[in-house]
């Protein structure tokens, strides 16, 4: 399946764009997504940490991804 990933903060700078498209197998998890992204964008691994959000909720590494999910890369937040 093809999924679209939103990027914010420093992740947007690393991707060089506010969103990227990625081809994933239909059983892909958050963990698989992070692995692929870190292969394509090694600078992601230099972040203090980052989370993945699925449909506006923080996701766990084992969570499955689905074709129409809204996926976002959440680098360490610093609002307030």
């Amino acid at each position, binding site marked *: 399946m093809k999924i679209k990933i939103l990027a914010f903060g420093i992740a947007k700078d690393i991707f060089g764009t506010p969103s990227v498209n990625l081809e994933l197998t239909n059983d892909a998890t958050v963990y698989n997504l992070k692995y692929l992204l870190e292969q394509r964008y090694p600078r992601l691994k230099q972040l203090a940490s980052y989370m993945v*959000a699925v449909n506006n909720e923080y996701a766990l590494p084992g969570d499955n991804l689905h074709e129409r999910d809204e996926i976002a890369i959440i*680098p360490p937040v610093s*609002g*307030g």
Partner: protein
Amino acid sequence: MTLTTNIQIFSSPLNIQSSIDWIMSPESGGIDVFIGTVRNATKGKRVIRLEFEAYEPMAIAEMEKIAKQAFEKWPVQKILIHHRTGILEVGEVPVLIAVSAAHRAAAFDACRFIIDTLKQTVPIWKKEIFEDGEVWVAAHP
């Protein structure tokens, strides 16, 4: 029905007076307001301005969660959380939190909980712009 939460993200300056007008009510005895302001320096380095970016729908959802937790933990009456996006000059207000309660202890506790938790969980990012460069805060170890 009177709304008990007022959670918004703005790209224009926050209005403190109208926020306080919203939070006040005949039932409340104590209101605590937290105003974050853009400081002219961080770790001794001069800050020119800040830039805030939000993942808006999720940021609103996370702020709603925080408000819900605060209502569960303390007897508070109304909660307002307003956050800015965009470019902010020194002295401007990125965040405004107001909490009303019958008694002040709950208002203080809840207001502090809200700003502390917001800084940990709400997907909003701050870029500090210095004379010689810029940096996304908290991105690196």
